[in-house]
């Protein structure tokens, strides 16, 4: 644990005249869950997608420390990046439809990453898929059903299973509980947290929901107008916010 898992420095990204990420730097350490909070349009998702190699930033360096050493995410070849994205990384999209193949069964969705990693034994793939369906609390009898017959919450859990089956070291999540009703949200939070603990993975979670951020993340970054205006341990940021905007954000949360 002497090196971080991911190191971001001086990241900058603009879309035309609009600056989405401005001079963002941070380290992510093994086992950490980093929450990125802020209002819509503050650059959270762009930051996440830039780090995950889905968008090319204008400036800055992103280093990922794999087993073999430091890799510059935006300097590596595309096949190398894709290999990383289907082995050591995972990306959970806000909308499950962006992260699932809707025209193949739940089992095939879960098994795809295994097959992409050269698994060639049908029964092994299938039993692994069944194991993961159970892990995300989807009835095993649904393994051959198409995801479009699933509810939104089930689709999101399926997406998580599909991503975590290869035991990634780093998971990117974009509003993983957005658009779900609260009971489903709680179930998903519980699931994500136990997976994080049991698999020892690290995660970067973008959310605008401070309650989700509090329960999931060990550390928080607050973004406003493309910049990180405050960061610290989750309880530090939420209980003793320093920046004016963070204070506004925290004081605006509805209490139940």
């Amino acid at each position, binding site marked *: 644990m002497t090196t971080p898992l991911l190191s971001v420095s001086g990241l900058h990204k603009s879309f035309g005249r609009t600056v989405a990420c401005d001079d963002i730097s941070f380290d992510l350490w093994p086992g950490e869950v980093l929450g990125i909070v802020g209002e819509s349009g503050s650059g959270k998702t762009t930051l996440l997608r830039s780090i995950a190699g889905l968008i090319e930033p204008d400036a800055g360096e992103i280093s990922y420390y794999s087993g073999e050493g430091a890799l510059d995410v935006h300097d590596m070849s*595309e*096949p190398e990046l*894709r290999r990383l994205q*289907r082995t050591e990384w995972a990306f959970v999209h806000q909308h499950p439809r962006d992260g699932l*193949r809707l*025209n*193949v*069964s739940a*089992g*095939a969705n879960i*098994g*795809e*990453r295994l*097959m*992409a*990693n*050269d698994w*060639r*034994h*049908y*029964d092994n*793939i*299938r039993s692994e898929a069944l194991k993961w369906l159970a892990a995300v609390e989807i009835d095993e009898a649904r*393994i*051959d059903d198409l995801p479009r017959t699933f509810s939104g919450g089930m689709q999101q859990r399926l997406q998580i299973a599909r991503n975590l089956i290869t035991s990634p070291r780093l998971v990117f999540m974009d509003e993983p509980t957005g658009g779900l009703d609260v009971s489903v949200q709680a179930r998903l939070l519980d699931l994500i947290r136990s997976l994080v603990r049991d698999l020892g993975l690290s995660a970067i979670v973008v959310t605008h929901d401070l309650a989700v951020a509090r329960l999931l993340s060990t550390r928080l970054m607050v973004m406003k107008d493309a910049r990180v205006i405050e960061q610290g341990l989750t309880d530090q940021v939420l209980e003793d916010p320093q920046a004016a905007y963070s204070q506004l954000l925290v004081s605006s949360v509805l209490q139940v």
Partner: protein
Amino acid sequence: MTIEPAAARDTGYNFAYLNEQTKKMIRRALLKAVAIPGYQVPFASREMPMPYGWGTGGVQVTASVLTPEDVLKVIDQGADDTTNAVSIRKFFKRTAGVATTEATAEASVIQTRHRIPEQKLTSDQILVYQVPIPEPLRFLEPRETETRKMHAFEDYGLMHVKLYEDISQHGHIATTYAYPVKVEGRYVMDPSPTPKFDNPKMDNCAALQLFGAGREKRIYALPPFTSVVSLDFEDHPFEVQAWEHPCELCGARDTYLDEVIVDDEGGRMFVCSDTDYCASRRQAVSEAAE
């Protein structure tokens, strides 16, 4: 002999219909395709005097490799006498004046739709396939930009997703035609809608195999003696179809059979789909009897 000899061609057209510039362009694409077995080479497919789906890709490839000395055979689903085969054969008789035949052994160029002849091909022969959809990954990935990258990066997990779906739905790999293959351990290729029964014939074949997709504007190729392996799972290995009965005309037990309805009362029989192969077996039997 069954060869119909070369005759005068219609000189209103260039030899084999296409102009020389076009044939050169297609030959360049063919050379590239032969150099990179299984790789889909884009080419400037021309309008042909027949509709798409009737073999415009195969016809352009045949036109580009044909010489006046060639003997041409054309089959559709294994038969020489079906509409598509007859009209393409006529087309080249008229525009190229080449000799034609129905006997596999006598042909130097064979254009085919949906079958590979039962008789083993030789190094003197070229087999030209008509291809409707050249992209094996299209079933699951609609974006051409993405499928080209997948080929480039050998990112072929998706191909097995399709086979997985087959097994999960049918208990076995139910894909029976256009069954995907891996060429020389590198490119995954669609063998065109031939039955998977024919897949083993592509492997290590002595003849040059050329594939033309007219509407999709792609050419690909298997040079002679190329390794062609059908994709499968360790616990669900690739298997060809088998029939309970032999061909009811020639008695062959190792050929691909077609079901033929013989009357209005549901009567049917199973016969070789390769009409030339079936006929020559029957002829050999009757000659031996004499």
